[in-house]
């Protein structure tokens, strides 16, 4: 049918028809939230980051280039939020390393996962470096096309493919390590 595209909605938002942002919010909030949740493993932080993404979309609406893919744009914003998050976390950890009290921020806020296996999966994912974890989330949980991920990360499709493979290999190792 005649579904209004994300891009059309965003262009309306750009023209200060802010109501249209509610429609985009409905379309994307779950994806963005789960992207953060899987990337950070932190429920509260994921909620904060999600709302921050949409507020940035709102505030920076004029910088959206009309005609460009909205999904790409919003995930660019989301990715930057994740990077900021881990930068903050690193500073936080660095500060506390000296004191020998490293709070395990990533796991302190464990959320209720549907199954034990999912909980184990998240634990295994938490062991991946943030960058690899994010890649995995985009490729395997968001089911983003390799082309789009490559675009987002300014890398080649073949490089992304290789990285995803390696990350899954690593994930497998962490996942089954836990059994011991």
């Amino acid at each position, binding site marked *: 049918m005649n579904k209004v595209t994300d891009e059309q909605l965003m262009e309306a938002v750009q023209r*200060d028809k802010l109501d249209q942002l509610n429609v985009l919010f409905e379309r994307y*909030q779950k994806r963005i939230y789960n992207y953060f949740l899987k990337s950070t493993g932190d429920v509260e932080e994921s909620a904060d980051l*999600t709302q921050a993404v949409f507020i940035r979309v709102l505030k920076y609406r004029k910088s959206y280039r009309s005609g460009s893919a909205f999904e790409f744009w919003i995930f660019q914003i989301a990715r930057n939020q994740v990077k900021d998050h881990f930068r903050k976390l690193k500073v936080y950890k660095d500060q506390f390393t000296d004191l020998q009290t490293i709070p395990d921020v990533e796991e302190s806020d464990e959320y209720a996962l549907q199954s034990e296996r999912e909980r184990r999966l998240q634990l295994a994912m938490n062991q991946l470096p943030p960058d690899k974890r994010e890649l995995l989330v985009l490729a395997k949980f968001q089911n983003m096309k390799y082309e789009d991920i490559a675009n987002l990360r300014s890398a080649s499709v073949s490089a992304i493919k290789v990285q995803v493979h390696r990350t899954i290999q690593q994930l497998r190792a962490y996942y089954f390590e836990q059994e011991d």
Partner: protein
Amino acid sequence: MIHATDEQLYEAAEAHPDDELALHLAQCEACRNRYEEYCAVLQVITESKDEEPPQSIRWEVEAAIAEERASIPRQKPYLQIAAAILLLLTGYVVGTYLAPTHRKEVIALQSQVSLLKEMALVNALEPQTASERIQVVNQIQANEPTVSEKLISTLIRTLNTDDSPNVRYAAAQALERYIHQESVRLQLAASLEFQTDPLIQLSLISMLVEAQEKAAIKPIKELLGNPNAPKELKQQAQLALDILT
């Protein structure tokens, strides 16, 4: 025996092992175990469901939208649409349309959007940003004769045929900008003959008188001879006739 690589095992888990690999897996426990581990991990990934985001996100975003909206001057959406069109049509200062007295026309004009859409004019309204639209307006002002002809005929048609008096009134007001063109004055005079709303009749009369348009004399006289015309309107018409003759 040559064991399978992780690469092969993972790819097989994603799709299906080919015959050669399947044969190997049947014979080699080590590879089979790793293969099954890949299958298990991929399965958990596939099965893992998205969590529902907490409601608080929606509230925060809605609050931010409301706040942002309040910070935008002349935010009312209908005013924006109408103001953009009117700005284009008439070159009126947008601020004028925020005055309460003009609000009705603006609301009414909104219903005219569909009519205007028929016109190529809408293409001019398409550009996305405000600065682009302003450029369009400037262009139109620069190329006035060609563009406004289309606009004028739309406005005239609106003035003569629209169901809503408010819209007709707004169209009349918009046309005032082009009163220096003789063809516009003649069409306004012709329109006056069959307008029945006193407000529109008054506004047409005052425009035509101000423009010293003699073509208005005939319809004004007809109006004076109309027994159903309101007394006040007739007074104004008489005054106009005195000026014109």
